[in-house]
């Protein structure tokens, strides 16, 4: 038979697959490693706040209010105190868990709902597509903010016992309900594009069931555009949560979150207390950056041509 000029790959290498190869490709990138470190840091803070501070964020001393962090990272108040005299480092650390829980649950739920509906609509078309697309149209005309405010007003004044679920759940449900549409649209478009390709026809010709085609062939193509919008959505969830906090319908006190800190910090940033605003913002930017890097790398890793 004809000889092939391409040299053979490592002779008896173990069977490769898309996800294994993708993981290996990502582990080799320094920016991914850096992003992973940031994510690890943030997640540890959310999981074990005790590792980072021994102060109680709810113990506030009025006369120590707005103490600038003269001795950065050391001393009594490593990051100073906030407007009410609470230890700022403790506030931030303890605000991480509600923030991350909220942001991740909103994103995960939105992606799951959006992708499932999008792939179903795109793949089956017909009346399924008609129903989902109309629902999409309805939800998309209601801005995220407005929908959330309307919905959360119903929960308002219920108070909170400090239980994480109760603190975060109303905001998470509201934000998910009005946040899945973009994922759905992208997934639907990618599915429609993919389902008419020859390799999908080939799979159907081999007798593959719909479920197999959706998972094996359609899903990886739908994931690609989604990875691109997850990081930005993550950022916007945190920011919207901050806005809701201003209205008193976000994460319920006494729990706090980065969003709450951001909105509080804006009031003092002009008066020389930039750290009250800058530190939560910096954390937010770093987190969004690490997710963006991760998403970007994942997209490249899922495209064998770019590896």
């Amino acid at each position: 038979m004809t000889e092939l000029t391409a040299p053979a790959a490592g002779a008896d290498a173990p069977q490769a697959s898309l996800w294994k190869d993708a993981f290996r490709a990502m582990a080799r990138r320094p920016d991914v490693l850096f992003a992973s470190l940031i994510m690890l840091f943030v997640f540890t803070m959310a999981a074990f706040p005790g590792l980072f501070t021994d102060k109680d964020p709810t113990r506030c001393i009025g006369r120590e209010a707005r103490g600038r962090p003269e001795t950065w990272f050391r001393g009594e108040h490593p990051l100073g105190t906030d407007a009410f005299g609470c230890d700022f480092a403790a506030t931030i650390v303890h605000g991480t868990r509600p923030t991350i829980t909220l942001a991740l649950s909103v994103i995960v739920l939105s992606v799951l709902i959006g992708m499932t509906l999008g792939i179903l609509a795109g793949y089956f078309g017909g009346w399924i597509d008609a129903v989902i697309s109309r629902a999409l149209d309805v939800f998309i005309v209601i801005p995220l903010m407005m929908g959330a405010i309307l919905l959360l007003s119903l929960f308002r004044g219920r108070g909170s016992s400090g239980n994480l679920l109760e603190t975060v759940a109303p905001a998470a449900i509201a934000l998910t309900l009005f946040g899945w549409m973009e994922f759905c649209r992208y997934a639907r478009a990618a599915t429609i594009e993919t389902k008419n390709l020859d390799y999908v026809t080939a799979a159907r010709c081999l007798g593959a069931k719909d479920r197999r085609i959706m998972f094996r062939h359609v899903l990886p193509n739908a994931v690609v555009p989604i990875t691109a919008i997850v990081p930005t959505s993550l950022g916007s969830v945190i920011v919207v949560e901050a806005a809701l906090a201003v209205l008193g319908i976000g994460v319920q006190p006494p729990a706090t979150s980065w969003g709450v800190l951001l909105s509080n910090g804006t009031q003092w940033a002009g008066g020389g207390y930039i750290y009250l605003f800058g530190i939560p913002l910096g954390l937010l930017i770093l987190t969004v950056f690490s997710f963006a890097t991760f998403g970007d790398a994942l997209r490249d890793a899922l495209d064998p041509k770019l590896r």
Partner: protein
Amino acid sequence: MNAETGQASAAPEPVLQATGVVKHFPVQRGVVFKRTVGNVRAVDGVDLELHAGRTLGVVGESGCGKSTLAKLLVGLEPPTSGSIKVLGQEIGGLSARRIRPVRRDVQLVFQDPYTSLNPRMTVGDIVGEPFEIHTDVVPRRERGAAVKELLDMVGLSPDHVNRYPHQFSGGQRQRIGIARALALRPRVLVCDEPVSALDVSIQGQVINLLERLQDELGLAYVFIAHDLSVVRHIADEVAVMYLGKVVERGAGAEIYGGPRHPYTQALLSAVPVPDPALRGHREEIVLQGDVPSPIDPPSGCRFRTRCWKAAERCAEEVPGLDEGGGAHEAACFYAEGRDVTRAVK
């Protein structure tokens, strides 16, 4: 290639048989309330018969319905009417579940080697996918070896299992597609323009591969192509399609040596021959105008609007393939054999 007589006694029952196959696609208007305003008559009454180890070439120009026919034959589209039998079993009206086992016997080879392989899957996964769909064909532990054997069979190195499609050239990708189609040991391969996207020097490699596989595995091919020279090379029998109908059918040598239908004659005379010495010495039949719309095809003989022999009768009656009773079948009232490929002077 197999001798005609030897095969006839060895395989009395055709592996693939299509009778009166029709496929209409409704043309719909309106956004909310869709109403059907007409039908695209993509395939309009086609009969075919294919025996084991033989190759049937289907030729025609774009829009003649040959690609739709390919989809019907492999069961990807249900026919509007008519019957398609694979090894004697009807697949025409089967549900998706019932059709699955029959699918194994008929597989499709695609035209475009770039879109027919999932770019995100390794070659091993692509060629091994049939085994995962039909888990009873090869036990799990032996699948790796089976995939390597398939790659070897189509002339690729078995070491390539961990590579991705983009690392291969067009011809190699076409081999991967053929390996995938062969995994379930089908009896029939429907090849839809399998070499038309390839360079000339690579076309020959793939055609020779298909011929070798046919000899080794006793495969039957439906070879759909617009390139008449390639079909002449590989096909035992040829069917010429025009606007959803077969207009001429017969053994390859008969069709190419003495086409009887005016459309076949025009088609063959238009194929350029790579020999400058024949320039100006070959008969050139240049057709006027374009192929009419398949939504509203001409009455009677569909070719009459472009035919130089057309008479009144052609507009009123539909010619059958048995018209005139010549050496082979041609759907023309005025069929007459005529050699158009060789020099006339």
